[in-house]
């Protein structure tokens, strides 16, 4: 068990190159690398929580004291040190290409967060830049989540459906999502529908595959209990299958969330967009406004972090005390 856990917690690279993988491990590998590309910072910042082993109740309760072993302040100290180092190095070097982080922060503040109190300090530029991006991302992610969970549970509940759909799923998620954007551009033309469709389609696969795996791994004894208790189909789904699959569903949702962010930026980098964070990036780049480029990058990092934190909070709320104790 401990050996399994150690392996399951290893880096994705480790579990991918290992020759003899345990079933746990290969599933973990799937959860983390839906498309072969690195799924981005949302995952890396919290890799240990994407361990969706069947014994997730145990690993959860045991990883908690381990995390508490590093006090809050100390945990942030590395990030703080990195920023301080960056500041010092950038100042010492004085390059126009690499402005110091404090200047970037001041620039971002002036650009987006110096608005009136009534607008939550958001400036017009922020409303025109951040909100359209977040709106597209939310629309794409929610579409992907709803469709992915529903289809995933349906596929995972039926052995035959799983066997039939699995090759399709493996193929679909192996295609690097940004490569599909040109297809959507041709089909839907430039604009928000194309962007939402790109995000939704890319974010669908991780949550679908993980939901299917989660539903498939429902404890057979509990299914017997459900049969003996004569639960109806919907009751069985609501009280047994869905809660069993929840840790895996959230593993998929976290991947989908970071993919949504990637696709949001990518689809806004294309010509034909008129607003959004990605547009700000390309626009600032053409004007050689590196401070704005760096500000947009920082903003994306902060957004990704906040969104992931929000998702983790939802997860913790849903996978309640019954699981963790």
């Amino acid at each position: 068990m401990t050996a399994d856990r150690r392996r399951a917690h290893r880096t994705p690279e480790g579990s991918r190159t290992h020759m003899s993988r345990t079933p746990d491990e290969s599933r973990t590998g799937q959860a983390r690398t839906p498309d072969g590309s690195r799924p981005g910072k949302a995952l890396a910042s919290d890799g240990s929580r994407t361990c969706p082993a069947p014994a997730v109740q145990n690993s959860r309760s045991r990883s908690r004291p381990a995390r508490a072993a590093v006090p809050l302040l100390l945990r942030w100290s590395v990030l703080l040190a990195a920023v301080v180092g960056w500041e010092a190095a950038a100042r010492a070097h004085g390059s126009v290409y690499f402005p110091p982080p404090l200047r970037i922060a001041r620039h971002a503040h002036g650009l987006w967060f110096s608005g009136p109190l009534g607008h939550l300090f958001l400036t017009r530029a922020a409303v025109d830049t951040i909100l359209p991006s977040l709106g597209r991302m939310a629309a794409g992610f929610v579409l992907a989540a709803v469709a992915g969970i529903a289809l995933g549970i349906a596929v995972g509940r039926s052995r035959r459906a799983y066997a039939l759909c699995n090759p399709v799923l493996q193929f679909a998620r192996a295609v690097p999502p940004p490569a599909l954007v040109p297809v959507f551009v041709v089909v839907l033309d430039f604009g928000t529908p194309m962007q939402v469709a790109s995000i939704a389609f890319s974010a669908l696969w991780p949550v679908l595959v993980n939901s299917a795996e989660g539903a498939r791994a429902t404890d057979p004894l509990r299914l017997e209990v459900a049969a003996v208790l004569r639960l109806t189909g919907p009751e069985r789904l609501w009280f047994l299958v869905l809660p069993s699959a929840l840790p895996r569903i959230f593993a998929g949702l976290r991947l989908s969330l970071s993919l949504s962010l990637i696709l949001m930026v990518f689809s806004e980098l294309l010509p034909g967009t008129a607003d959004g964070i990605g547009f700000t990036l390309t626009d600032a780049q053409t004007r050689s406004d590196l401070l704005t480029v760096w500000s947009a990058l920082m903003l994306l990092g902060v957004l990704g972090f906040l969104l992931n934190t929000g998702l983790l909070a939802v997860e913790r709320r849903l996978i309640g005390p019954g699981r963790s104790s």
Partner: protein
Amino acid sequence: MLRLDSVRQRYGDHPVLDGISLTVPDGQLLCVVGPSGCGKSTLLRTIAGLLPAHEGTITVDGTPVTGVPERLAVVFQEYGRSLLPWLTVRDNVALPLRRRGLRRAARHAEAEAILERVGLSGVARRHPRQLSGGMQQRVAIARALVCRPSLLLMDEPFGSLDARTREDLEDLLLEVHRADGTTIVFVTHDIDESVYVGDRVVVLSHGPGSRVVRDLAVDLPGERDQIGTRGLPGFVALRTEVGRAVRHGE
């Protein structure tokens, strides 16, 4: 009344049960004993309608078993898996009441009443994982009793509990059985337990292809107690006989 008529069961080419015939009259507490791996659990799952019998018939009150029979309840050994960890104790127990069309408040009241009966008051709002093993198995028993079963199947229910907890739960079971007169099929590999708890003990032979090798009535006084009953000469004689049948049964 539960009737098994030459029931056979196999996994692929591997015979598990080789013609089991049994009649369990209403209100009897039948213990099924046998060496591990002899197909006791398979027998129980077949009676519960979870596994279709390969050959032979099972009837409950004259109705052939095709799916899970009405008013049947099962208590499994692995309470940690059989209870749903994401539901509170009360919601676990109240789960089978949903199909009776009771309102939420009525379901909760009934669940709490049955929890009190199995000696668990004040834990209704906790989650199963917050309770000890013995308490969790009490919750599972409460969930089985809450829909007033006429046939209760128990698959080594106390097998993973410590000695003292096990004795307490054996006495709880006897108390429930005396009060409700439920027909109970109790599977165990513990010879002492089978004689202490049962009205009748059936011994299965070693697999593959288990058969009934011994069918003994337990004629001990109805009131049993952990110290006194186990010292009775009748108890000692019976456990010796069952023990011999388990060891040498073929």
